[in-house]
């Protein structure tokens, strides 16, 4: 699945987009642990929300190969 990065998560991960296999990552919770293991600096953020197909998602949400996931570090618009 496609994982989009924004703001500081793009700087931590070093890419605007990465691709993960839907076989190994089947829930938002699992995605979180895979990412924070691979990029430990993500766990230093004030918060890290996950959007699935442009909607904020709870950890229990299941993921499919075709989902577009986005990492949402603390927002600061306005």
């Amino acid at each position: 699945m496609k994982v989009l990065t924004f703001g500081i998560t793009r700087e931590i991960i070093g890419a605007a987009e990465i691709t993960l296999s839907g076989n190994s990552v089947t829930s938002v919770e699992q995605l979180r642990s895979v990412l924070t293991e691979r990029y430990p600096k993500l766990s230093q953020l004030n918060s890290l929300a996950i959007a699935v197909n442009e909607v904020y998602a709870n950890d229990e949400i299941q993921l499919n190969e075709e989902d577009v996931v986005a990492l949402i570090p603390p927002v600061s618009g306005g």
Partner: protein
Amino acid sequence: MIKNIEISADSLSLQRCRDFVNSPANGAEAVFIGTVRNATNGQAVSKLFFEAYESMAIKEMNLIADQALHSFRISKIAIHHRIGELGIGEIPVIIAVGSAHRKAAFQACQYAIDTLKEKVPIWKKEYLTSGEVWVSAHP
């Protein structure tokens, strides 16, 4: 049309937001204009950079407008947000609300800016003399 949601790389127009919410049935319009301050926590700011997850931000801004129209007795709302690089005094956000009465207009306008700052996927990087910082990212 009762809501007008925009994300733009160009300068925002106060007049355009205000004109959108104007209506003969309104007696009150409340407007919020965010501007780039020259300092934050006592440190000088030279400029800001705004990045958006644009498609989702537009959805969230529409949700805010729908909620404001549902919760308060207002007739129209415009929410415009700018992205890209902004100098001191430039305008990142304008929210305009039109209503029959002023109390609802103020309430809806405050609700919209408060919720925008909490929910809409837009990020601000500050350029300080000490370096660049993504606002609120770290404790």
